[in-house]
């Protein structure tokens, strides 16, 4: 196991070197939150890929496919197609209208106090659940791979590193850590995919012949067939409708993935790091190329683990499918090659988690410092020094809380925690962002209702649903593991009903008056935040 430690130590040393370099150029708020808006399109594309492909992607999907076959691959599909929503509707308008956070876009039209507070709550919820999921994953994987490591220490080390990157190096360090990680992850996935295919004479047909021989005992289906994770034949009752549970779970999962990605604050924040809307567009193109290529390769990682290692070889923790596959491909346990490849892939998994939690910490601390502290508590006072200081303190606070929560959640299901994050992002954040940009009548009450209502209903449906408890509840109050199909329409409905309530309460002149401005600005970039450091547009043109 010393190989794992050495390779991990080298990667961590590289990221710390980056952080020291980045710390020297991180003084102003625009540098801390948005890397001075000087990241180029392809660099941001790599960083988005690094920010996005979490432990859930690398370890989680490989494990889901290794244990459930085809159904696990549906995550891969949804997580890529989701970027079309980002590209076509969100990325460029966000770059054109915001400064540092998701709430900047909303506060453009709405009363800053209420919407920034509500958006800070939803951002902290999404980033918090997501971060804890990553840390629980990091803890259990490191603990299993390096037996000397306790779960607690693994979580503490991840926490200290992520706080270090963000506090010292801000967005510049976070971006480059994500770029290094994306490169390593792609290299690891390509290497394993080629080696898997090599076992089948580089003939995909022989590979699929082998997959079709793996049969799920419970359902009798083979691993190329859909229906193992969400079995056919069960029914779910939604009001007067009786629906096939398998179909509904799959559609509901798809909805959360497709609409949730465009509402993830740590991803949206990445679009502020590039100089123009055009660069934001280019960066999504690069990200889609990389992310898509990676997810196609989960075919080889996941099915490869199912065929070559098998459930008995992987053990009870399906997160270990990819590392165990690496060990097998290197020559098996206790061989030099096996140790080396296992070490490399484990280190890549560790780097993956670090890069994602750094992005999440930055999103959470900026929601607190920029949205809540500077704009709500301090009433919009502009102080570079204070804002960067508060953001750094917030990053330490967020990190410490995440570590403490994660240590106490060792048995939590990481995939379920991520599901909460995606449910809140798709039901709370996305409707409000879309309406702010494209609906003239939308107002402050609607935005607050949408954010708070969508967040609350998502958490509620997951809590009363079947998934969160270990073991799962036998008769849950809400039948679906994936709440999206109910919570997303409700999120839109809260925002709409809130808007009409707001109108009945006397209207929101500013939201209406500012609509032509946000419509023009978001689509053209008139008056968009430039990449230069000291330039600042006045609040009223």
């Amino acid at each position, binding site marked *: 196991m010393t190989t794992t430690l050495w390779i991990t130590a080298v990667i961590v040393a590289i990221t710390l070197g980056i952080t020291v370099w980045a710390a020297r150029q991180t003084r102003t708020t625009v540098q801390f939150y948005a890397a001075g808006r000087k990241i180029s399109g392809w660099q941001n594309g790599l960083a988005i890929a690094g920010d996005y492909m979490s432990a859930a992607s690398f370890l989680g999907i490989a494990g889901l496919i290794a244990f459930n076959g085809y159904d696990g691959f549906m995550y891969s599909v949804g997580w890529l197609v989701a970027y079309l929503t980002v590209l076509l509707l969100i990325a460029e308008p966000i770059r054109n209208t915001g400064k540092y956070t998701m709430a900047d876009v909303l506060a453009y039209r709405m009363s800053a106090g209420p919407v920034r507070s509500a958006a800070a709550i939803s951002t902290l919820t999404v980033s918090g659940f997501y971060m804890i999921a990553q840390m629980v994953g990091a803890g259990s994987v490191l603990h299993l791979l390096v037996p000397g490591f306790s779960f607690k220490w693994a979580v503490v080390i991840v926490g200290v590193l992520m706080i270090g990157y963000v506090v010292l190096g801000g967005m510049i360090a976070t971006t480059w850590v994500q770029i290094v990680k994306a490169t390593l992850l792609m290299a690891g996935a390509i290497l394993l995919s080629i080696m898997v295919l090599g076992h089948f004479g580089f003939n*995909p047909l022989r590979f699929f012949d082998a997959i079709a021989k793996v049969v799920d005992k419970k359902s009798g289906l083979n691993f190329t067939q859909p229906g193992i994770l969400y079995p056919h034949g069960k029914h779910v009752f939604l009001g007067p409708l009786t629906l096939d549970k398998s179909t509904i779970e799959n559609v509901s999962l798809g909805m959360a993935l497709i609409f949730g990605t465009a509402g993830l604050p740590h991803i949206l924040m990445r679009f502020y790091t590039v100089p123009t809307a055009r660069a934001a567009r280019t960066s999504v193109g690069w990200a889609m190329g990389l992310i898509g290529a990676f997810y196609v390769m989960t075919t080889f990682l996941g099915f490869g683990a199912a065929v070559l290692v098998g459930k008995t070889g992987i053990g009870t923790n399906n997160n270990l499918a990819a590392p165990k596959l690496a060990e097998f491909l290197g020559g098996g346990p206790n061989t030099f090659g096996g140790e080396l490849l296992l070490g490399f892939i484990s280190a890549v998994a560790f780097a993956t988690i670090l890069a994602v939690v750094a992005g999440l910490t930055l999103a959470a601390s900026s929601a607190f410092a920029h949205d809540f502290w500077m704009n709500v508590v301090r009433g919009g006072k502009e102080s570079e020094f204070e804002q960067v200081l508060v953001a750094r303190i917030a990053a330490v606070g967020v990190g410490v809380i995440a570590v403490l929560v994660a240590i106490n959640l060792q048995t939590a299901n990481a995939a379920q925690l991520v599901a909460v994050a995606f449910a809140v992002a798709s039901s709370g954040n996305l409707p409000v962002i879309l309406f702010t940009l494209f609906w003239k009548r939308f107002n402050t009450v609607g935005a607050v209702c949408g954010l708070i209502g969508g967040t609350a209903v998502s958490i509620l449906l997951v809590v009363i649903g079947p998934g969160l408890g270990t073991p799962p509840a036998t008769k849950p109050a809400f039948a679906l593991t994936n709440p999206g199909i109910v919570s997303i329409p409700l999120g839109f409905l809260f925002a709409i009903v809130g808007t009409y309530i707001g109108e009945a309460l006397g209207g929101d002149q500013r939201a209406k008056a500012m609509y032509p401005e946000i419509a023009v600005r978001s689509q053209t970039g008139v008056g968009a935040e430039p990449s230069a450091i000291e330039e600042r*547009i006045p609040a009223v043109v």
Partner: protein
Amino acid sequence: METRNRGQGTRGAPDAQVGTETAQTRSSAWEALAASPEFRRLISAKRNFIIPAVIFFLVYYFALPLGNGLAPRLMNTKIIGNINLAYLFALSEFVMAWILAAVYIRRANRVFDPLAAAVRRLAARMGFGS
């Protein structure tokens, strides 16, 4: 002063009423820009592309989970060797996403960006500053 008013409510306090008036003068200038032929051209070009594109990818994407759930026998049809329709359809989602993204980026660079630049030039002539 004005900076602070952006964050205030619109009813009640006299401060806020000043803010509303400023917002309205400001708003009429932006309304003029929003009503300009330059901006209308950009918006209709974007709308004509983006709305059909979004509908297309949503239909294409959700056809996969719906097909897997409602027509498992069809989706299990073997196409080449043991590679079935369900897997090939899933793979085609990646190709669809890449092609649609490439088409959009090309269209945006060649058509939408020049149209947006025309609006920005108009804004500069109208004295919108940055």
